[in-house]
Structures are given as C-alpha cells and as structure tokens.
C-alpha cells in the first residue's frame, strides 16, 4: 500500500465528521481537508436582553466592526447578517468558483461547515420516504440512532409530531417554551382532533440543541443568543466532533485548504488542494476519496473530474415566512428565551404534498429586520413593532425539494453555475398553505398577519440536494447505494448531493445518518481487504 492515506474526507461539516468517525474508529488512516475558517466575533457575554440593555458595545455583535450586517442588507436571512456568523459563509462561492444565476448559492468554508449557522432542526425519514432510497430502511435506522445519540437531540415527546420526526427513544426532554408557544400548544391540544382531520398537526420541535449537558457542551440557559452566537455549545456544530477525532493518531487534519482537483493515478486517487484565492498547492494520494464539501462544491468536483458538461437537476426547498399575532398576549413582557424553533407543524396540501415549518420567538431577532418590511414609515414601524411584536411569533415553511426547478452545470472555465426558479405548482401550493395555516392558527387563537406571508427567494433555503443521487443502477454522474460515483470508482459522495429525495422536513440528520452508513461500510470493506 503506497498511498499517502487510506481515505481522504473532503469537508468537516455534518456529513464529513459523520463519515470520518466510523472510518477513524475503524483504524483507517484518514485525512480530512477543510476550508478552516473560524469565528472572529465573540458572542454576547450575557443573555440577549441584558446585553441589549447594558452593553454599549452591542453594535459589534449586532452590526459588526466592518458593518457586516449593513453590507449584507439584501441577503435572504438574518443569519447571513449576524456578524458572529459571517465566517460561516465567507468566501465559499468565490473560492469554489460557484456562480448564481437568479438562484441563491450559499455554502461554507468554515470548520464544521454550515452546521455553525443552522436551525438545528432534525427529523428522520418516514418508512414511505425511506422506501425511495435504494437500500434497506434498517441500515438508515441504525445510523439515525447512532448519530442522534452522538449529537444530542432535545424535544422528546409523544405529541402529534412524534411520528413525523421519527423515533424519539434517544432524545432529551424539550427546551422550555416561551409563554406564547405554550399558549399555542395548549389551544392546539383542545382542538387537535378537528385540526388533524384537516391535515394540520403541531408539536414540539426536535432540535440538535441540548436541554441537558453532553460532555463539555452545556444545556440551553435560555439566553436568547442563538442568532448572535451561543457561547455554551448548546447548538450542535460538526466542529464539536473534531476534538474526539483529533485524539486518534490515524486522523490527520488539513485546515485552510480547498480541493482543486481529483485525478486517478497508480496509487488510487490524487487530490490536489490549494489555499483560498491563489495560494499554496499540495497533493495527496488515497485509496478512497469521500466528498462531503456540501452539495454545490461536491457537485462541481465530480462534474469537473468526469468532464461532464451536461446540466443536472438539483433539489431545493421552496420557502415562505410569516408572522402570527396572539391578541390575547398583547403587552406580554419580553423575556429571554430560546431563539430557534419551539413548535413545528406539518400540514397536508393537494396531491399528497405536505408542508413543514416551525415558529420562533421574535426576541433575539433585530426589530430593524421587521421594520424594513412593514408597509409603514420606519419611525412608526418601530412604534408598531414595539407594541405588537412581543405578542407575535414568526414562522417558516418548507415545501418538498422537487418542486423547485433548479439546475447546475459546469461552464468552460470549470466553474459551477447554479440557476433555477420555483416550479409552476409552487405559487398555488404556497397560497393553499397560507390559507390552511391562517385557518388552523386562527382556530388556536393566532392571527396570521395578512401582509406578513412572504414567499422566499429560490435557493434561500440553503437546502441543496440530489445532484448526484444514489440509485440502484446508477447512470454516469449518479451514485451507487453507497454513494460511489459512477465512472469514478473509489470516490464517494456523502453530503446532500447523493440524496435522491428532499422532503419538506429537515434533512440534515438524514445526511449525517447516510454519511455514517457509508463511512461504516467503507471501513468494513477496507478492513476486509487488508486481512
């Protein structure tokens, strides 16, 4: 065996670490390459409301010393404006040569990848959904269980969303809800039979956010700093898995590098890496290469290696955002609380399609995020927000990924062009969802504010998948049930790119479980060959 490493894993996000753990634990010599960007803006030291009231330097984490939030004024989500999360997205498209054409293309070069700035939503695919994957459902179930135990998930409950989210056995209890969500759930429980008959169900969100300490990660203390940076490690980031990997002598980390090219040579595969921009170049050989760079970056590497110029379809969830007002809670005092999803809903729409979403507290989001969109002058918009927002919650909504007509292709210079728009069915479905949500929430005492329901910009979900789908009998550019790229034996795809479906529900846990499954299979396989 002459290769530098047995396996090279590209990317240190949720997929990268999930696949690396079984490989490293299996004793294989693993190199992990990642962009290596790390946080630069320290999170607030005290809870959000205390920091707001007392910290004269709060602009540093709210707007940023370089005025990041202002420069990102037109970005699709508040998390793209949060200075403490700027590093997560910084330089991804530029350094990876990814270009947008009417479609948002966002990714990460950070250690831990996009999981440094995610909503922490986790869900398992249902039996029906698993049936669409080209392997036995039991393989995924075992991996779901392993990953869930490792990352720590809160929200255990036998509520109406239990089936939707999947097996709750390993979960921690939920993080306490705020008053508004408590009331919503209470009202829902009174009317659940009728609402379920209409295809609407509501329950606690299942989140990779701790309600009890796990090793050195601390439980949520309701500080409300989720958006601006949690200093407790409550929210799972793949970064948290790196220290345990580093304890193994057979694990090597190469941080601050992007993969530039993949070539087959005598020793297996040769991976060329470079520093961001135009810097140092190095190359390493390995028997196997596992791509976990994120759907967009992974797809570009594969299409370039295959020299495939045809465009490929990509899955991406259409999104919407809305605001609910609870009139009975008017004048509620603002209290520190959890900033991510507290309640999640699923609602059936036409043609067997279902929408999924969660609702959040408005505390912890800047009011100026709202005043810009209120059809009033800012001065009075602030007055309105001050009076109204403490009795409001905001929500998001996702539709299944196949409803977006997105495509990716490689241009003459080897760049990846991401383009697309929502399919024709999205507008009527969004309209139907709005009406259903309005009715459902009205019956539990919340008014969906009429002008608040906004359909998001295509690609703004940052859930990209399915460009190199796993198939029983993969064609060129597709992948085997173990993610191995057809035409590139020994190169595996373990991130969103290999998922053949992207339902409305949160998909990160599925990516991680699949990466674990593939990593485990490769580890077993390579060990067998050795002996």
């Amino acid at each position, binding site marked *: 065996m002459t290769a530098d490493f047995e396996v090279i894993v590209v990317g240190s996000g949720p997929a990268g670490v999930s696949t690396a753990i079984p490989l490293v634990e299996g004793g294989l010599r693993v190199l992990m390459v990642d962009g290596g960007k790390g946080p630069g803006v320290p999170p607030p030291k005290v809870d959000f409301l205390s920091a707001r009231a007392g910290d*004269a330097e709060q602009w540093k984490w*709210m707007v940023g010393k370089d005025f990041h939030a202002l420069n990102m004024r037109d970005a699709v989500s508040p998390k793209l404006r949060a200075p403490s999360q700027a590093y997560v997205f910084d330089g991804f498209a530029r350094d990876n040569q990814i270009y947008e054409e009417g479609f948002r293309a966002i990714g990460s070069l950070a250690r831990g990848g996009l999981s440094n700035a995610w909503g922490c939503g986790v869900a398992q695919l249902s039996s029906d959904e698993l049936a669409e994957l080209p392997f036995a459902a039991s393989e995924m179930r075992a991996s779901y269980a392993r990953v869930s135990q490792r990352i720590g998930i809160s929200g255990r409950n036998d509520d109406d969303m239990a089936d939707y989210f999947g097996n709750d056995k390993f979960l921690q209890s939920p993080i306490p809800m705020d008053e508004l969500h408590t009331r919503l759930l209470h009202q829902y429980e009174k009317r659940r039979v009728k609402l379920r008959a209409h295809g609407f169900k509501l329950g606690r969100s299942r989140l990779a956010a701790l309600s009890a300490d796990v090793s050195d990660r601390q439980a949520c203390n309701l500080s409300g700093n989720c958006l601006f940076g949690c200093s407790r490690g409550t929210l799972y980031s793949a970064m948290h898995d790196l220290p345990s990997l580093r304890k193994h002598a057979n694990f090597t980390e190469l941080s601050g590098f992007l993969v530039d090219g993949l070539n087959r040579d005598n020793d297996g595969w040769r991976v060329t890496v470079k520093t961001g921009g135009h810097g140092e170049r190095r190359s390493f050989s390995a028997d196997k290469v596992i791509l976990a760079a994120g759907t967009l970056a992974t797809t570009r590497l594969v299409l370039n290696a295959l020299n495939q110029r045809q465009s490929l379809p990509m899955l991406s969830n259409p999104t919407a955002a809305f605001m609910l007002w609870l009139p009975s809670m008017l*004048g509620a005092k603002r209290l520190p609380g959890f900033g991510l999803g507290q309640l999640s809903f699923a609602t059936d729409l036409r043609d067997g399609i279902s929408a999924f979403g969660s609702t959040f507290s408005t505390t912890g989001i*800047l009011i100026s995020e709202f005043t810009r969109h209120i059809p009033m002058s*800012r001065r009075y918009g602030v*007055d309105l927000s001050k009076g*109204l927002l403490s009795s409001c919650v905001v929500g998001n909504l996702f539709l299944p990924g196949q409803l977006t007509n997105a495509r990716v292709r490689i241009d003459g210079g080897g760049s990846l062009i991401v383009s697309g728009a929502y399919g024709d069915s999205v507008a009527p479905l969004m309209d139907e969802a709005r009406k259903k949500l309005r009715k459902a929430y009205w019956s539990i005492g919340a008014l969906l504010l009429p002008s608040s329901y906004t359909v998001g910009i295509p690609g703004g979900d940052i859930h990209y998948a399915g460009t190199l789908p796993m198939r029983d009998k993969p064609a060129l550019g597709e992948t085997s049930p173990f993610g191995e790229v057809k035409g590139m034996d020994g190169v595996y795809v373990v991130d969103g790119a290999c998922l053949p479906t992207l339902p409305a529900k949160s998909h990160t846990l599925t990516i991680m479980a699949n990466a674990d499954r593939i990593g485990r299979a490769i580890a077993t396989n390579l060990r067998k060959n050795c002996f």
Partner: protein
Amino acid sequence: MIKVVITGASGYIGSRLTSLAIERGLDVVMASRQQQAHPRASWLYFDLASREVIDLPADTDVVVHLAANTTASNSLDDDGEVAAAQRLIRAAQQAGAKFIFLSSQTARVDAPTAYGRIKWRIEQEALAVEGWVVRPGQVYGGELRGLYGTLVRAVQKLPLLPAFMPAPFVQPIHVDDLAEGLLRIAERGALNSGVYCLGSSVPISFSSFLAEIAKSRLRCRRSYFPVPVVVINLFVALLGEPWRTRLGLDRLRSLFDLPVMTTAADLDQLGLSLRPLMAGLHPSGDDRRRRLLREGKALAAYVLKGQPSNGMLRRYVRAVECSRDGRELRLPGIFLSYPIVLSLLDKGSWLEATMGEEFFWRMDAATMLAEATPTGAGRFLGSGQRHGSVTSMLSIANALAGEVFWRLVRVFVSPMLRHCLTRAKGGG
C-alpha cells in the same frame, strides 16, 4: 514633468504647496536655509540674507517665491529682502523659468508697514520681467502656523476678543485653495502676466472671522468688546518703531488698512472656487464628515424619537465611508432641522425613484445602528419600560395615528416636495 523651485517651502503656505505639487506629480525643489529631508523632493540652499548668486537647476520651469522675512529681530533689512528677490528673478530668467511671487493684500507703494512696502517693491520687479504676482486675502486652515496659527491660539486663550471699530474686513482663502491657485498659474501655459488677487469675493468683518474660528475650529463661544481703531493707532504712534515691531503691532495696523480686493474675475480666470469658510476651518480641511454627522443625526433622531449618542453617529459616518461613497445625501435643510419631517420621504413608490436606493440604504443603516445601542433597546424593544396590553395598545395607536397623519400631509405637499427634492439633487 514640470520642475518647480519653491522658496520658503517649509513655511505655512510653502509646505502645503510642496505637498500638493508632489501629489500632482511635479518635480519639486525645496529652496530654504535649512536642508530639507523630503522623500519625494530635492533641496537647494537659499537664504534671503545671503548675497551670493543663486544657482537654479538648468531645467527649472517655474520659481515660486514664498520666502519672506517674518521675524522681527534679524539682520536682514528692507533693501536686502528686495535684493534677494532681484537675484532670484535674475536666476529664473537665466534658467528660462516662470517667476511667481506671493505678495500680500497690504502691498502698496504707501503701505503703512514696511512689510507692505517691500511686497510692493518686489511686485514691481516681478512684473517688470512679465512674472506673476499673487495677492492672497486672509490665509487660514490646515496646521496652526503663520498668522492663522497666531489667531487661533489667541481666540483659544482669550475669553474676550476685541471688536475693532470701525470694523476691518478680510477676504479669507484656505491655504490649500491658495496653493491650488499658485499651482494653476505654474502649470497654465497661456496666462497673462499680472497681479492676481485671490480671496473670498465677499469680504467679512474681522470679528466674524474670529467668531467663525471660535465656532467651527475651536467649538467654543467668545464674547467681544469694542475697541476703537483710533485708540490703537494713537497707542502705536506713541510706542515708536522698535516696540511696534517687537509687539507685532504692525500687523494689526496693516489690518486696519486693508484695501478691498476685487477677486471674482481672477478666481474665475484660474477656474478656482474657494471652499466655504466654515468647511475650511475644520481641521480636516473640509466639513464632509460634519455634514455626514448631521445627516446621521437627523436620520437616527427620526427613528429614535430622541437624540442619538455620539458613538452611534460616529459609526454612521464610518459606515457611509466604508460601505458607500462617504458623501452626504444633500437632504434639504428642513429634514435636517426637523427630523420628524422625514416621515414624508420614508416609504412610498415615487420616492424610491426620486430619493434613490441610497437614501433607503442610509435610512436602514441609521435604523440598525440606532437599534444597536442601549437607548435603541429601550426604543425598539421597550427594555426597562412599562409593559402591558394598555401600553402596547397606546404604542400601536400612536403608530397608526402618526402614519395616517403623515400620509395625509404627504398628499398635500407632494408637488412641493418633489420640486424641493429635485432641486436639492440637482444642486449636486
């Protein structure tokens, strides 16, 4: 590359002229008594008191003569200073260089001070060889040097300032504007030889000049006491020559005797437009930042319904400098004085086109920066304030009433508003 020899290059005006000339890509030779170590200019020995022949570089294109005897106690006499100028003019002629002489507003054959009379004599020498003469008004701005430095320090120290009666008038010119004027004469090929008077075309009283120094440069208030000029003249006459010179009272006397210069035509010929006094007195040489601060203050006060902190305003200025063009928007004055009136401009379809994307960017910047302060937490979140359904209802009712009111006003004033905004934009 134009080679320019500048005498008095280390002085108040000379140093600014040197910097500006180097910035413009001119080859500068600093001519002075003491060796000058400048990374981008060379040096030539020149002393007004020396009787030696001046040896200019052969390829000299222009000589700008700024050096003058401003210290009272040295051996150089009046004729000596004129003789030095004559030698310099001869050297310039030999090198085939243009000769530009910086004179004074007081230059006159019968000037009350020796200074004014010497300037006049050198003017005659310069004009005789078809040179150029520049008579500046009251030079100010930049570093606290020269007469300007003396005046600023005096205003700083004295709680009471003299208001001379009858009031003498001065015609201020910023040191950089003067340097620009000298450079234009140096660079311009076809420009008639003669006397160029450079200074504000509208004279202002000396007391207003001091008052503006107090307000714009020092940010303080000063009181004034009347001093009849007759008294000073009498006092000066009684003191006699040596004391007069030692106390610098000659300068004061020339102030009382300043002839009003007609400057508009000369400024026009050089294409020179002088910055406003208020702007020029700012240490940075312009009041761009001050205008941005004023804009940020109005936008933030509009959103906050109260005064923003200084720190917040500084951040606004820096944000506009870092992320935008760093210039103010030229909002009509009424919006700056009465921020609430900005309600007329905030949101509305035709405003998007009239005000442009930039206005709304700045509005959002001011809003976000105002929110990101402890005061903002109170205003935006109600932190530390009463809460309850009644408070909330009042806040909502207040919001709706305000919105409706300003929308109605907007309907009535929109034709005027459009006119006013278009004019303000066109003014740029």
